[in-house]
């Protein structure tokens, strides 16, 4: 830029004015990153260059180009900026006549402006291309970084796979597995190929499928919250894998949603839980399942057992086990229990069976029957054979036997508790028969037993409430029909069941052990009543109480009778005690001794329920302590029967021995007559009078 510009003040003022106006126009149209004054200074420089170009002519194009490029560098890149520039600069230069000769001015200004515009366009184009290329590079780099980040993420996930045991899979909304990791394969014991061909629903246990489908439906319906539930997965080896399953929705624009499935193996946790369960469900001593475990297995077995074969439950009670612990010590007892447990387990090792220990010396066996399962009788025999083989325990030779209640093939709709109750009742019935006995459950019998049990349980309360009374049944002299004595009987005025008769009261009381105090009470009541009767002139009715077996064997019986007699002042001869043959002639000794002693002290001892069996007859006649025998009215004692004729002979032997005979349960005059003929002294029964309160008998 060598051409000198006119240095006149007017020229400078005009150029400055042009620059200021240009700056204003540009800065109000486009952002120029500099202060106004600086812009004006820069533009003044451009104006002076352009003026010089016009003046020199040869520099016109170059000056124009440089101004055009400078504009773009100032960030004036819009068409609007170019238009404004062309307009204001063109007009401004044309208004400066000093720049060039009049015939050249217009041509040179056009030259300058055309070059400015051309350079502007070139510069804008170049700048735009450069910026676009920069942007393209930045986009590429940003994507590249994102890709690297993605690869890094994948690498991290890959690492996770090696260090986590969590199963990870992605499924579509139908549960079909799209991807899965090796850990999932390990959890469900399947190969990648097997997993790829399966769905989440096929992997979960059927019990969980419905719930899982509901979970998927929720996610498919737009649910955004992860769902975590404990679930059971089916392993290829048939075992179950306990997992915590988390389902999370995966959504991407323009892609169908998927589900991320996380399976955390919870089997270890469940194993630990299982161990705790084991402790809760097993007997510590024998390691056998306990009653609770047995019950739940029973429930399952009732549902799943072959309906044709059914199940069998054996409820065992070791006979006399308390004698083993009492006599040989607790340790021997424990040892015996372990031996028994082992033997029972060995017994059913080939069956689908469970052996459990229920209580102290009670065991139970559940057998899910198959066609090859031995029948009940064979099973019982095997149990007895196994248990009776003697073994050594702490230097002692021990053998055990068991009493067994059996429930065989109960109905499928039985509940476990019903079934166990039935087994228990059956066992108790068997125990009532003796040692080493067994019985099959009988549902009707069960019902009766069950009612009896509940009645027996409420009896003490009823006694306390005065529901149980002592009544007197007249015993009549057959010769003249006069009341000779009074049978003492009990009656339970049950609020719901009505009056329960004497025999039932005794049976119930015997069941629960209530009989001893109840019997003592009845005895005392009766003796007090007898004393009352003695106070009336001409009366003196003895009372008669039939002892039950356990009362007869009660070591305190003598003391009780003595106390009652002394307290009431009743002569011993006014008390008669009936005793069963078993008590009188049994091996137990104690009862017989008791009764012999009482007889010596003038208490009338009588034999109850005399059957006229030869053995009894011999003992009766030889014993000498029995005052009388009582026979119940029966078919044998029906007048005219062949048996009755034979019986008459037997009774003659009794009479000859000086032993009295009394008949019970007489209902017709013919029966009464027969008894008189065979030598009976007295009789009782419906023919004469029912049992009633004391005053009824005295009338």
């Amino acid at each position, binding site marked *: 830029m060598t051409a000198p510009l006119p240095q006149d003040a007017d020229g400078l003022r005009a150029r400055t004015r042009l620059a200021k106006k240009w*700056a204003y126009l540009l800065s109000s149209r486009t952002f120029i990153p500099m202060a106004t004054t600086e812009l004006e200074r820069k533009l003044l420089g451009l104006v002076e260059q352009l003026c010089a170009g016009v003046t020199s002519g040869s520099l016109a194009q170059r000056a124009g180009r440089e101004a055009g490029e400078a504009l773009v560098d100032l960030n*004036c890149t819009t068409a609007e900026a170019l238009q404004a520039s062309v307009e204001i600069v063109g007009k401004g230069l044309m208004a400066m006549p000093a720049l060039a000769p009049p015939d050249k001015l217009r041509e040179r200004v056009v030259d300058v402006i055309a070059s400015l515009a051309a350079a502007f366009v070139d510069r804008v184009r170049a700048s735009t291309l450069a910026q676009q290329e920069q942007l393209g590079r930045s986009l590429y780099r940003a994507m590249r970084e994102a890709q690297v980040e993605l690869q890094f993420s994948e690498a991290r996930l890959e690492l996770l796979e090696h260090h986590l045991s969590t199963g990870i899979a992605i499924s579509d909304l139908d549960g079909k597995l799209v991807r899965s990791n090796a850990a999932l394969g390990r959890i469900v014991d399947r190969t990648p190929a097997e997993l790829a061909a399966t769905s989440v629903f096929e992997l979960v246990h059927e019990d969980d499928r419905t719930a899982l489908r509901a979970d998927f439906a929720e996610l498919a319906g737009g649910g955004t919250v992860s769902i975590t539930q404990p679930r059971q997965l089916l392993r290829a080896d048939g075992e179950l894998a306990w997992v915590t399953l988390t389902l999370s929705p995966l959504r991407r624009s323009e892609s169908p949603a998927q589900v991320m499935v996380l399976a955390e193996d919870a089997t270890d946790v469940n194993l630990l839980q299982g161990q705790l369960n084991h402790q809760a469900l097993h007997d510590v001593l024998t390691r056998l399942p306990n009653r609770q475990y047995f019950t739940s297995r029973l429930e399952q077995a009732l549902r799943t057992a072959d309906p044709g074969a059914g199940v069998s439950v054996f409820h065992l009670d070791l006979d006399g086990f308390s004698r083993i612990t009492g006599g040989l010590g607790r340790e021997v007892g424990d040892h015996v229990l372990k031996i028994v447990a082992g033997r029972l387990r060995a017994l059913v090792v080939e069956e689908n069976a469970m052996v459990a220990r229920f209580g102290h010396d009670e065991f139970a066996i559940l057998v899910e029957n198959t066609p090859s399962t031995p029948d009940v009788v064979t099973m019982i025999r095997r149990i007895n054979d196994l248990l009776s083989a003697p073994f050594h325990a702490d230097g002692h030779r021990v053998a055990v036997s068991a009493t067994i209640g059996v429930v065989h093939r109960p109905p499928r709709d039985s509940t476990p508790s019903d079934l166990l109750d039935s087994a228990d009742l059956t066992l108790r019935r068997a125990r009532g028969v003796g040692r080493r006995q067994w019985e099959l459950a009988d549902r009707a019998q069960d019902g009766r037993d069950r009612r009896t049990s509940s009645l027996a349980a409420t009896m003490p309360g009823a006694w306390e409430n005065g529901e149980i009374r002592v009544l007197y049944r007249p015993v009549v002299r057959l010769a003249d029909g006069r009341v000779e004595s009074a049978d003492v009987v009990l009656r339970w005025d049950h609020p719901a069941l009505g009056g329960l008769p004497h025999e039932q009261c005794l049976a119930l009381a015997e069941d629960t052990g209530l009989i001893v105090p109840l019997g003592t009470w009845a005895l005392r009541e009766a003796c007090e009543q007898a004393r009352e009767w003695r106070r009336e002139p001409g009366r003196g009715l003895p009372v008669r109480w039939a002892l039950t077996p356990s009362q007869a064997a009660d070591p305190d019986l003598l003391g009780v009778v003595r106390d009652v007699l002394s307290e009431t002042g009743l002569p011993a001869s006014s008390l008669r005690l009936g005793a069963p043959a078993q008590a009188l002639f049994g091996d137990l000794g104690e009862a017989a001794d008791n009764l012999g002693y009482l007889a010596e002290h003038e208490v009338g001892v009588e034999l109850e329920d005399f059957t006229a069996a030869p053995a009894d007859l011999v003992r009766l006649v030889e014993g000498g302590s029995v005052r009388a025998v009582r026979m119940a009215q029966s078919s044998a004692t029906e007048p005219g029967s062949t048996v009755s004729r034979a019986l008459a002979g037997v009774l003659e032997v009794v009479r000859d021995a000086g032993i009295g005979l009394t008949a019970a349960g007489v209902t017709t005059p013919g029966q009464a007559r027969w008894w008189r003929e065979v030598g009976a002294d007295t009789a009782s029964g419906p023919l004469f009078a029912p049992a009633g309160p004391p005053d009824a008998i005295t009338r």
Partner: protein
Amino acid sequence: MSWFTKRERPPEHAMSDLDWVPEGIDVTVPSVARTYDYLLGGAHNLAVDRAMGDQMLKVLPGARDLVRLNRAFLRRAVTYLAERGVRQFLDIGSGIPTAGNVHEIVRDVARGCRVVYVDKDPVAVVHSRLLLADDENTTAVQADLREPEDVLSRPEVTGLLDFDEPVALLLLLVVHFVRPEEEPGGLLARYRDRLAPGSFMVISHATADDRPDTMARAADTVRESRSKDNLVYRTHAEVTSLFDGYELVPPGVVGHALWRPGGAGDIADKPEDNTQVWAGVGHKPVTGGR
């Protein structure tokens, strides 16, 4: 071997080559930063950005002026701060670094100024890094204004800026993308608590106070584009309250063209164009602050 036993994508996912591209790099979605560049006359933009810019110009013919005036306000404010001795600048929502960026402005005032640009647009940040490669006093970070603790703990930020010394926090045309439920007041307080006394905060914020209908249409334009950002206009009082804890530098919160204008180009011809953005500079007091 991948952690997936089955590597190949299912067929329905083969449709897009770019489905792994994170938000902000998807070239089919307009970017606020690139549209801003377009309106400023730059060419760092794509067809989708220009389409949005053109649509914006239709509903708001003064849009070019808006961005130009905002850029001019930035220049004046930053120059003012540099002259008041501030040497550290944290520019959040910096966008595409076109002409007249903060580091260029302050370079003309003082040596040794340090500038950190923050934007959530990954392209803008990568672009900034390209341009700033040789400048050790300037860097760019991809982060979100709405996560102050993240922004303030980035190594690029803590490495370049000393928060024991005054910092100028620049928030130009960015706070109006923070929704009310994101509690802009509480958000800015978290920044304020980290700034040393003597620090400054600069805000420019779009408003509909003067032209509710026009501005509503402008907001609709942004909303209808697939951009994730939506404009939330705030009143003069609301913008003023964003400066809680700061003392406003005179003239306070005013139209961005009216904040200490330096020449004809700083002010638009149409008066309403001068006040469609509220702008202000706050000073965190040296005593009684923190």
